[in-house]
């Protein structure tokens, strides 16, 4: 089961490392990662595999949210299907 992690906020050192570390602690595997600076904002989109995750999606989501707050970023994880449904026929 795949999910999409999005990270948006002010650029600083160590964002990717922190997010990947946090995901790794839940045994979430990163499949793909793309990152740019969009209109001055750090913007990262990751595709991850959550089928082997050690915790439920809700716990992972809360943990990422807490990490986001501590780094002044918006971090969210959502099931991939929602983006598929909205943007592909």
């Amino acid at each position, binding site marked *: 089961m795949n999910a999409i992690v999005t990270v*948006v906020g002010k650029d600083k050192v160590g964002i990717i490392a922190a997010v990947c570390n946090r995901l790794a602690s839940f045994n979430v595997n990163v499949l793909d990662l793309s990152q740019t600076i969009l209109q001055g904002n750090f913007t990262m989109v990751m595709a991850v595999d959550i089928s082997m995750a050690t915790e439920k999606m809700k716990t992972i989501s809360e943990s990422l949210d807490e990490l986001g707050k501590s780094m002044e970023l918006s971090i*969210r994880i959502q099931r991939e*299907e929602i983006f*598929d449904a909205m943007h592909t026929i």
Partner: protein
Amino acid sequence: MLDKKDILSTIEMIDQQHLDIRTITMGISLLSCADADPKKACDKIYDKITKYAEKLVKTGEDIESEFGIPIVNKRISVTPMALVAAASETDDYVQFAKAMDKAAKACGVNFIGGYSALVQKGMTKADEKLIRSIPEALATTDVVCSSVNIGSTRAGINMDAVKLMGSVVKQCADLTADEDGLGCSKLVIFCNAVEDNPFMAGAFHGVGEAERVINVGVSGPGVVYHALQSVKGQPLDVVAETIKKTAFRITRMGQLVAKEASQRLDTPFGIVDLSLAPTPAIGDSVARILEEMGLETCGTHGTTAALAMLNDAVKKGGVMASSSVGGLSGAFIPVSEDEGMIAAASKGTLCIDKLEAMTCVCSVGLDMIAVPGDTPASTISAIIADEAAIGMVNNKTTAARILLAPGKKLGDTIEIGGLFGSAPIMPVHTESSEDFINRGGRIPAPLQSLKN
């Protein structure tokens, strides 16, 4: 991998444009709960609702956190209570409303709809008892919603029921006078009511429906408004195309959530209701969409045309996105629940007469309009009759949800709070309709040919 731009645009829709699932509504048939002993019937009602909808709220919350999409309301609709209560030997129907209220609270849902009667052609004894009990039922419960269908294209309009409803609305207001007539906001009077509507206050589970079913209502005026900002000044066919594309996306999301909820609750999926349901939040308004199309204020000349196009484009975009579309499906124009409508009504541009014209081309009707507290019951009945006539002749659902505000007059505003918002008191014609309403009887069903 998915296009990054698409992913970020979805995030922006949820974060900044108020994209959400307005409601997951579980319809439950209560026909099996009829019992000659009213107390037993109430127990059966409570047991059945709490058994079927036990996991509704939890499932909604799980989907919300996994998909990252807000689901604002979780609701229950049940079989019109007049049909269930008819078997019971009692005159006290309020106990059925209380059983619904208790069951809904036990399940943790926001509202339960179905304290209803269908009287488009005539009233049974049970229908009349239920209708007369509505004011007390709404005043003594918190989450029960009520609706009465008083007309249809096939049956015409039951003017005896229309007359009765005028005084019921008035009593609803009187019994909840200390809350600005809150009871009125939970009572909808329909013509051509639909059986699978997930939206409150008019939701009920029709007799043609399955044992239980999941219906989903989407929302997204903010997303449409935002999309239209990218086609400023362009021809209206471009605007329509933009609305269609946006509606498609919103509905696809609704369909996904509906399917997921139906699977997890082991309940058949019913319909997705393609409605643009506004909220009082800034940027979530249908009126502002119409203004974005080029109208200075919603309610001015051109509003009906703009709304007709919006309503049609939403349906065209949504129909392809869902396997089953139903409910009310269209743009809602509840005055108190729409920040732009409130502003237009306060300014005096949006009046009841214009709203009535607007309801000819959109869903649903004269919704959440506040009228002065001294408005006679016969005038309220006449407003209901006008609205029902539009539905009857045009073969569409129309409704009236009139907020009679005790003690309030023109220039005042009532605060209902939450998603219900606030409403400026709107002027009504002071000339009497009493003799017309007092005639009673029926308006015969209209001819279905020679349409002009």
